[in-house]
């Protein structure tokens, strides 16, 4: 992996829908190769943040700069909007990961096939190749999606609540993958709810409650004081909100 200093840079970013900000005044950088968790109360803007990085959402103000083309980001959305009833096999679902590299119109070589097999093995889905995705359990589906991420072989990986409602064994196995990615110097950003997991596995954390509350080393960020501050954030829209005065004029 070619070394870059900063994977993602935020410049006074405000992301939202209409004029209501979901995230505002986000300013800073995510260094390349970091393993970072994004935590915060419900509605804090965490998923919105990831969407902004991927490019699905355009910032209302400010810029998000990526070091490298956006196709080098692998994104796992929350409870992926996958049509489970579509007649697709696990193999074909996982193989989609290749398409981000080889494009949508290339063929699959023998080497590609080997990589698909490896990915399936890495997530413990050997033997599931021909199974239709409609027959997978939640955990199995998540494994398959992780296998697809593996195949995408991207330098930046974004995960939006990847372990929600997943059994413990699967969670543990997939966390191993996350660690492996970190060891491969990939940048991994994950939105998570489980603070114990964050403390155990993720060295860096961004605590966000519509605006960044704390950002840095996990133990400092997840202090009691910071957590209290974040909880006080108002979840609902304020009907009397004024135009925000802070930030660069």
């Amino acid at each position, binding site marked *: 992996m070619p070394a870059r200093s900063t994977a993602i840079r935020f410049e006074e970013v405000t992301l939202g829908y209409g004029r209501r900000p979901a995230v505002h005044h986000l300013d800073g950088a995510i260094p390349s190769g970091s393993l970072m968790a994004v935590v915060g109360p419900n509605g804090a803007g965490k998923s919105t943040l990831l969407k902004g990085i*991927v*490019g*699905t959402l355009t910032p209302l103000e400010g810029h998000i700069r990526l070091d490298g083309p956006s*196709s080098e*980001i*692998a*994104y796992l*959305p929350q409870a*992926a*909007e*996958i*049509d489970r009833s*579509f*007649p*697709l096999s696990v193999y*074909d*679902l996982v193989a*989609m990961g290749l*398409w*981000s590299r080889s*494009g*949508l*119109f290339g063929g699959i070589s023998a080497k590609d096939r080997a990589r698909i097999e490896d990915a399936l093995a890495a997530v413990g889905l050997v033997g599931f190749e021909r199974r*239709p995705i409609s027959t997978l359990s939640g955990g199995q589906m998540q494994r398959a999606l992780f296998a*697809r991420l593996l195949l*995408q072989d991207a330098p930046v990986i974004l995960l939006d609540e990847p372990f929600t409602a997943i059994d413990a064994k699967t969670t543990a196995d997939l966390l191993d993958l996350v660690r492996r990615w970190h060891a491969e110097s990939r940048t991994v950003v994950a939105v998570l709810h489980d603070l114990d997991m964050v403390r155990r596995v993720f060295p860096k954390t961004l605590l966000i409650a519509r605006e960044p509350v704390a950002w840095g080393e996990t133990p400092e960020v997840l202090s009691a004081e910071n957590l209290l501050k974040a909880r006080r954030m108002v979840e609902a829209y304020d009907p009397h909100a004024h135009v925000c005065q802070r930030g660069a004029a």
Partner: protein
Amino acid sequence: MIPMRMSASAAPHEDPSVIDFLVTPFSEFEFMRRALVGVIAIALGGGPVGVFLMLRRMSLTGDAMAHAILPGAAIGYLLAGLSLPAMTFGGLAAGVVVAMAAGLVSRFTALKEDASLAAFYLLSLALGVTIVSLRGSNVDLLHVLFGTVLALDDSTLLLLAAISTLTVLALALLYRPLVLECVDPIFLRSVSRAGTPTHLIFLGLVVMNLVGGFHALGTLLAVGMMMLPAAASRFWTSDITMMMIVSVVIGIASGIAGLLLSFHVELPAGPAIILSAGAVYVASLLVGREGGLLWLAWPGKHLEA
């Protein structure tokens, strides 16, 4: 002296042989051969398109698009008479405009595909009816717009062949984006910008097949040959490629059956073909291996693992 045999119903002398029953109508009459070729072309293009429509939950889109096309073809007829290029181009233009507009609106606004399509095709239809009735409505105009499979001339056959070839090629090329668009559109969007163009091209294929179909065979037949074989194929396989093949086979078989019914039992040709396809659908619904009612009711003993 007028020959007395005029009064008897001069039915063709029927040879009891099965081969004669099946083959003679086609070997003796050119219009039957042409009809067969036309039906095969329609099935070849319409089947796979229908499969994708069905998988994308767009089954009624075919019917809506058929209505959207009518005004364009009517205008073409009013301007240039019964001319293949004029009516085809008119129908294509109207269909493409409606399809694009609906597709783009559903992409960029909160309105979903079904509502945006409904809005646009109704607009198109109303516009068409208004224009036609301003020029003096003619009931026969509708008759004329709906062709008949028994009257396929050379240029129409060529059109059908071209459409089905184009369709097969396009579907082969766009196979992956089409599948991805149905299964995981977010992933597709994150990986490639081919999503929107793919969707629009697909709608274009739908329009093209419908225009070719209705011009030669009537709206009923065009939409029917698209949706019924595809729906039936769902009950026989879960693999997309197999579904496409099965739908083409069912389409062709229905065409042959319908033509023979029309020949021996005197049913109108278009509806006979659709009825045959419908019969296959009902049969598939009942006894199809993949989720047919019979298998659902009596699944047999469960397996070990």
